[in-house]
């Protein structure tokens, strides 16, 4: 029997079971637009009076399910450590590799500076007002990291390495992850439950609404931005070693 036939024989029963499961699950769902989840409606009603946060989603992420978010942050941290470990002996770019990967166009350089600045600004804004308007630490962190990637795309690896060095990124990533845990432990030390809001709810609609939630938000923004940049650095180094070296051989 060919490998393709074996594959089909294994896949078909599994797909049949999956289809049955999907049909059974979908038949139990409320009709679209008629969801009545009591927990969500309750949080919509109480998040603003209780925490002075107008963005209920961010209030859930950093307060009502704050421990869950700590786990999420540590998952990201662990995954970044895993990627760095997996790629530790696949070769680092030599100075010759770095010299080969350069961008000559001045127009691209100008676009890169403007684009990177705009993306980083949007990222900081998303993170800063995460408890007020749409956004939050995760979204802001990703946007900031994307802004730095624009530098690599438009100015080459040499410029990237000036900004995103391991020496700068590793402490920032560790600081972001540990600040979250430290804020949780600080509440514990003062006799309150873990991750309790020590600073009070703050003033609605301002940068400091949510009290210590805004600090948690910034810790996550730092961790996510640094973690993404470490990941990008690892993969970009592989690109520079492999592809740029190939191009140089031609």
């Amino acid at each position, binding site marked *: 029997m060919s490998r393709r036939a074996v594959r089909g024989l294994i896949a078909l029963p599994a797909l049949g079971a999956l289809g049955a499961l999907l049909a059974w699950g979908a038949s139990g769902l409320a009709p679209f637009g008629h*969801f009545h989840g009591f927990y969500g409606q309750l949080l919509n009603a109480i998040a*603003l009076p209780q925490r002075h946060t107008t963005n209920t989603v961010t209030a859930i992420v950093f307060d009502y399910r704050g421990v869950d978010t700590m786990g999420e942050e540590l998952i990201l941290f662990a995954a970044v450590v895993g990627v760095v470990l997996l790629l530790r002996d696949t070769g680092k770019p030599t100075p010759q590799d770095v010299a080969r990967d350069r961008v000559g166009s001045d127009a691209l350089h100008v676009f890169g500076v403007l684009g990177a600045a705009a993306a980083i600004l949007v990222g900081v804004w998303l993170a800063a007002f995460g408890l007020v308007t749409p956004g939050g630490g995760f979204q802001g962190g990703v946007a900031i990291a994307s802004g730095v990637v624009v530098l690599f795309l438009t100015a080459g690896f040499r410029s990237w390495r000036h900004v995103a060095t391991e020496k700068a990124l590793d402490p920032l990533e560790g600081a972001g992850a540990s600040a979250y845990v430290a804020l949780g432990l600080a509440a514990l030390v003062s006799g309150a439950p873990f991750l309790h809001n020590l600073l009070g709810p703050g003033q609605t609609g301002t940068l400091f609404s949510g009290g210590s939630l805004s600090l948690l938000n910034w810790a996550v923004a730092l961790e996510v931005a640094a973690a993404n940049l470490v990941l990008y650095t690892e993969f970009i180094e592989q690109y520079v070693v492999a592809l740029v070296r190939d191009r140089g051989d031609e």
Partner: protein
Amino acid sequence: MHFLAYGVAVWIFCVGIYGAIVSRNLIHLALCLSVTQSATYVLLLAIGYRNHATAPIFKGFENRTKGVDPVVQSLALTDIVVSVTVIALILALALDAHKDADTVDPDELVGMHG
């Protein structure tokens, strides 16, 4: 029409699964997994939707009784973070496999070297 959004989620899920089954390339496989996981974002947001409701962000709103469900939205955020970490690890493993075996076709990656 009531089940269109759920149908889209199921469709995206099936497209991703199909791609994963016929995949001959580990990087393609990682992208298929990403597509499959995207179905869960659509499903979560579709479940939480309520007719004529606003986003659960009440800057400038006094009436907070009609907002879509915020819990599933924060779950979608968790989902995205997990997706990113999984993809990063799979791509790193694919690079490692390519270094050892000089291929990213799972069929050719036979046997283990101690």
